[in-house]
């Protein structure tokens, strides 16, 4: 299991290759990548986080996923600081013997990272910068687990 919180960009392909390489017995590997969507005139994004709590919160979410599903491995990488449109914000990878476990755990990790890990996104456009509001649907998504 791995949790990485960093401001530097990460190499998505290399991370997935390394993760897949060390879980070759798993059968099923699922990855999710979140990218800064270059829409609505977005010129950049700044992600604030709560150092210390961030790592603890993510580690707890990963532990919960491991308790609920039969996972061989799991990885969460989440960036903070300034990001440009098209850059990867974060990724999740899960490995399991069966695809159902790998998919469910990856969706669970995403739902909880969205609403329970202390990150806040601020979007910059020509008119200025605004904090992204939490979506009701993201909070509602937690109810299915």
């Amino acid at each position, binding site marked *: 299991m791995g949790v990485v919180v960093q401001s530097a960009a990460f190499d998505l392909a290399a991370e997935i290759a390394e993760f897949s390489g060390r879980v070759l017995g798993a059968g099923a590997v699922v990855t999710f990548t979140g990218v800064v969507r270059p829409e609505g005139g977005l010129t950049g994004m700044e992600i604030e986080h709560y150092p210390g*709590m961030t790592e603890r919160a993510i580690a707890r979410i990963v532990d919960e996923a491991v308790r609920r599903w039969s996972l061989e491995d799991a990885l969460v990488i989440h960036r903070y600081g300034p990001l440009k449109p098209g850059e990867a914000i*974060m990724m999740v990878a899960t490995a399991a013997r069966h695809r159902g476990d790998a998919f469910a755990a990856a969706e669970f990790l995403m739902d909880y*990272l*969205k609403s*329970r*890990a202390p990150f806040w*996104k601020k979007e910059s456009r020509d008119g200025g910068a605004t*904090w992204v*509001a*939490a979506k009701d649907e993201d909070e509602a998504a937690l109810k299915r687990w």
Partner: protein
Amino acid sequence: MIEVLYFAWVRERIGLPRERIESQAKTVAELVEELRSREERYAAAFADTTALRVALDQELASFDAPLAGVREVAFFPPMTGG
């Protein structure tokens, strides 16, 4: 003494990321009342606590949670990670 942290627009409204506070508040709600009565910028930041979240020693908590033994309180809007 308690370390109080602010994030995102809470930090921006109050104008600082953290401060050390001498407080007799027994719960988070009491601490919020104390802060609100300080200055207008605090009143603005804490105008609607349903739009806020709180963490005690880096664990999410509720506004009626006791502060006994707590060293670090953080206030912030709902999280938008992922």
